[in-house]
């Protein structure tokens, strides 16, 4: 038994970027992402500049790109959507010759939209991963607290981080139990069973939430978490 030990995103290190105060890093990330999103997508050189800045920060943090790039897989659904844009968008079309004499007709505005979506998304994801790799989850929470994010939201995020492993382990055990009884979670034939598992997982997690709340009340919880700030040892 016992939950996993690894940090999924954090990369242990002692660089300048690791040591910078969490709330500054969060503000920098927010500023960076807003700037990227607000830049018109036709300003092609600007995006090169953004990438350069980002690579510089990653270089300073000494987190290897080999560590960050596989974790960018999370944005694949967005990229798939971006790749669809040139086919479905309206407006003037360009013809792209393909091998074998075939021609592909793509929408110009769609291509532009796909480029915008892909480049802005990728820059944002890479920047967020850099923050996650250089900042412990608890420090991110303290940073958000210092930035006066509403207490309730910080609490919800703290619980999410704490119980992510527990719920994943729950799901892992449930799928193992399903497999042991001959279910292949990947085969569409068994999707109904998978859906019921997810429903059961939701109910379980909800009930756990209630038990956690009881345990908190039992120790005098009154709606506020005591300061997350670590007392100096």
């Amino acid at each position, binding site marked *: 038994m016992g939950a996993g030990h690894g940090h999924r995103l954090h990369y242990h290190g002692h660089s300048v970027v690791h040591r910078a105060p969490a709330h500054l890093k969060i503000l920098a990330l927010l500023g960076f992402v807003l700037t990227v999103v607000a830049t018109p997508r036709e300003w092609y050189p600007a995006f090169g500049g953004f990438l350069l800045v980002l690579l510089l920060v990653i270089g300073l943090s000494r987190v290897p790109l080999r560590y960050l790039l596989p974790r960018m897989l999370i944005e694949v659904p967005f990229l798939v959507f971006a790749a669809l844009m040139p086919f479905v968008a309206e407006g003037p079309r360009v013809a792209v010759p393909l091998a074998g004499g075939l021609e592909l007709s793509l929408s110009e505005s769609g291509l532009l939209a796909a480029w915008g979506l892909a480049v802005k998304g990728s820059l944002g994801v890479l920047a967020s991963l850099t923050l996650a790799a250089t900042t412990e989850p608890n420090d991110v929470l303290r940073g958000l607290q210092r930035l006066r994010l509403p207490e309730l939201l910080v609490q919800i995020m703290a619980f999410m981080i704490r119980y992510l492993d527990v719920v994943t382990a729950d799901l892992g055990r449930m799928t193992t139990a399903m497999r042991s009884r001959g279910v292949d979670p990947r085969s569409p034939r068994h999707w109904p069973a998978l859906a019921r598992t997810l429903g059961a997982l939701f109910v379980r997690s909800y009930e756990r939430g209630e038990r956690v709340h009881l*345990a908190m009340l039992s120790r005098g919880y009154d709606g506020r*978490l005591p300061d997350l700030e670590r007392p100096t040892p």
Partner: protein
Amino acid sequence: MTTPVLDVRGLAFAYPDGHQALFGVDLHVHQGERVALLGPNGAGKTTLVLHLNGILSATTGQGAGSVAVSGLPVEKKNLLEIRRRVGIVFQDPDDQLFMGSVRADVAFGPANLGLRGAALEQRVMGALEQVGMADFADRPPHHLSFGQRRRVAVATVLAMEPEILVLDEPSSNLDPASRRELADILRSLDVTVLMVTHDLPYALELCPRSVVLSEGRVVADDRTIDVLTDEALMRAHRLELPWGFNPATVDSLPE
């Protein structure tokens, strides 16, 4: 006679869906006692425990009777003090440990009581030392083994300096070594204990007195050894000793 630490009188309770769980329970636990609360599944043990610190009460369902802790009635206006006096350790440590580090988790209760700074730190480390987990203060709870998490869960409650420690199935899911270590810890504590358990040898080892709850009523309240050797009583209330265990031949109990 001194005021009992726990004084439950005529406690009856039905859940809002109409299911009646308790039918007039009387229970007294005195200072320094270690009492086991035994009973089959569905006997109302958990319902009783949740009454002890006011999580359940006549206002959350249909109920009657009273609970008092060291003379203080369990009522809405006393809840914070009641929850300090009654420390409940729940069965699943993952329900009880929810902060980012062991230290923060143990500090949660005393901080809610208003402790800050050095006094808080002292209370936290004191409780962790009592359960032998002081070296793990800065670890996240979910990186500990199950036995260690159970011990930290006990520390989270000890840090509130309760008058009575209520343990829900303390030995469940522990390997034999962790089970024995927890018994050593519980014996070393100078605190009144009420222990809900199905682990009858554990009850015999730790608790001189046992109370049997069955279908919402107290059906026995006696020395643990007498309860466990009363075959008619045991059979009537679905209590069974593990195979090969004979309480009559256990001659020396650790004290």
